[in-house]
């Protein structure tokens, strides 16, 4: 072990081993972005036109005091289509609750496609249009579906960046009520 080249080889070997072990920790973990640091912050305000609402808007401000679930979705995304039944069931359970609101914000779709989808699937909750993507940006969305829970005080208490089940939605609502 007296030759300097041998020491260099050992050094290079150590660096390679370290590098490969770091890589190996990442094998199998999907590199999905987990969204911006929005939880526990004040929910970003939005004020958006309601689908076929004749100029009626839905604003977060006007929902103050309620537990709000915001669902970003559109008609062409497959996980959104898959979660529609869960959202409908969840809505039917809580529709009469005066302290609750569910808003579906359309992300990246055209009005006519959304209208057809809502009609076909008989979506009963509020669907708001976000043609300029302002709300989608404020909530740091990177795709759809994404679901956020907002407490009556207007604080984001939870989020889910994938397809939701009824249980997921109940848990989100629970966090909004508790927060």
């Amino acid at each position, binding site marked *: 072990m007296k*030759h300097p*080249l*041998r020491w260099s*080889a*050992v050094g*290079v*070997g150590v660096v*390679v*081993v370290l*590098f*490969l072990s*770091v*890589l*190996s*920790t*990442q*094998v*199998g*973990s*999907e*590199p999905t*972005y*987990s969204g911006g640091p929005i939880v526990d912050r004040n929910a970003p305000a939005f004020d958006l036109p309601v689908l076929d609402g004749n100029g009626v808007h839905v604003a977060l401000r006007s929902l103050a005091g309620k537990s709000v679930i915001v669902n970003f979705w559109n008609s*062409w*995304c*497959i996980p959104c289509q898959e979660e529609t039944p869960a959202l409908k069931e969840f809505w039917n359970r809580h529709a009469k609750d005066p302290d609750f609101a569910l808003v579906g914000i359309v992300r990246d*779709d*055209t009005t*006519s*496609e959304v209208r057809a989808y809502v009609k076909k699937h008989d979506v009963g909750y509020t669907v708001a249009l976000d043609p300029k993507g302002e709300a989608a940006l404020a909530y740091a969305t990177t795709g759809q579906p994404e679901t956020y829970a907002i407490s009556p005080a207007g604080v984001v208490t939870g989020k889910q960046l994938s397809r939701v089940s009824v249980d997921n939605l109940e848990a989100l609502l629970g966090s909004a009520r508790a927060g």
Partner: protein
Amino acid sequence: MKAALGVIAIALGTSASVLGVMTLAVGLARHDPKLLLAGRKYVFALLGAAVLAVAIMEWALIGHDFSLKYVAENNARGTPLLFTITGLWAALEGSILLWTLALAVYLAATAHRFRHRATDPIVAWATLIGLLVALFFFALMLGPANPFRVMSSIPFDGRGPNPLLQNHPLMAFHPPMLYLGYVGFTIPFSFAMAALITGRFGEGWLADTRRATIIAWGFLTIGIILGGWWSYEVLGWGGFWAWDPVENASLLPWLTGTAFIHSVMVQERRGMLRVWNLSLVIATFCLTILGTFLTRSGVLNSVHSFSTSDIGPWLLTFLAVVAGSGIALIAWRADKLHAPGRIDSPVSREAAFLGNNLLFAGLAFVVLLGTVYPLLAEALNGQQLSVGEPYFDAMTTPLGLALLFLMAAAPALPWRAASGDLLRRRLAIPAWIGAGSMVIAVMLDTRGLVPVLAFGFAAFALANIARSIYVGVRARRRANGEGWLRAGGRTVGSNPRLYGGLIVHTGVVLIAIALASFGTFGSRREVRLERGQSATVSGYTVTFLGTSLDRSAQKTTKSARLRLAQGGDVLGVYAPSISTFPNSTQGIGTPSVRTGIREDVYLTLVSSLSESKQVTVVVAVNPMVLWLWIGGGVMAIGTVVALIPVRRRDRATSDPAPAPAQPIELASEEVPA
């Protein structure tokens, strides 16, 4: 049935590699030439097995045999024939199959080339190592990347290839070129390892693998440039290089390979840099494996990661074995690897090559670090980060400019040492041409350090290349009284490696000029147009004529017809489009490009499918883009020239020994007056 046949072919390939490795190993241990001669035959069995497996897969693809999972996932009844054939490399399993075929071809070609030296231990060891690499890929296909998996129930129609892969004929050429490049580096790698094992790490293995290295490098170069071209014509974001992880993965072995091609000349000439050259070859091979790992195991997001699977741990283990054995062999041979040698002057060809290697190694390091940094950050403190174009531009531009300068000046430097007088004689006029170009560029309103330096260095380089060729041809004309054309051909033929290299450099200069112009003079605007309305961008007037919708079983395409005019001249009607495919939800935009010698007009349709009265179009004017592809073509021509066998000088006795490395020299000028 095809599945069974395919698996048999792969099993045959696996057994051929195992038997070959064992025969060669025993033959080497016992010094038994008969076994060594027998062992090399397995290479051809391997080639047969790989050809068979690929043929079965193509047969299944062309026959739309959806009982195979791979065919069902990457082919549909409506897929056109071209994209049915290219379905072989539309996803991971087929790519590995193509990769293995390429490797088998390289191994067989090498075995054929060294048929008279089959008992030479260095050749036998290199064959053995090549077979080990092949064994790994065959084992992958028996295990996690089996292309011949069957469907439990046969669907009526398949899913079809990824929409992005059935959009442009370039897809037929880009991946095979890239694989031929990647795989080709197996040959110099196995000879380098063989040299270390046998202890013959002089210049022999370099001469033996020179052609294989240049061939691999040439294919990799073409593959990378075709990838850029495909990206420009298909992805529609207006650029050709996004510093995306997959693109970086192909660039990494190219950078170290290019460094190797240059530093080899120092070892051939001066016997120095043995360890460095061995390390570069081993690193290049490791980087091809690392690139495959990064892009095929799903650890990084990328536009090009069309399929991921669970081969990640396999590739990582293989990489660890390859890197580990390379480092261990170098450490084992440490005391014998040192070569006496010195560099006499910092102003000499060999010193310039050292600078070149430092810069290429630096570039490779930057690209590697930037590519894996998000992974490191996530592993070290769970932070999610991005590294993109602004980082890579900032880090690589200075290195690239320094390389351009070296490339301009270095070919004029003599070996050992340059006198001031010689420098002035060779460099003064090209240097003034370079400086003059900078002044002209500034007078033509070019602003910014980078483009002005790039144009100046590029002119300097072109002038120097022209001078080298002129001086060589003139000397030949004077000596032999030949005409210009004949003397030109003879000059190139007398030293194809030198002149091939200079032609490659010319291609690089063209690309450098194109990159600098693209980054400096481009313009881009998003416009919203009603039917009949026009907008003008950089002198080009775009008028929206109408939309058309084209539905087929394959895809639904909406295109906007746009009339393009410059001044009063109508240049034509262009139709950028958005297509939706049954197997994908998002629309795929296809740009429409008016290609020109000076600049391209690049039109992309943005708005969604349902609107028809109004469209949003991005109009980009991209200067000099055509010259990127022309430069790539020139590089390919130069590579071919460099591969022309050396014409033996008028010698009475023929030389049976392997050809010695050709000195890179302007002989006529080197002789002291």
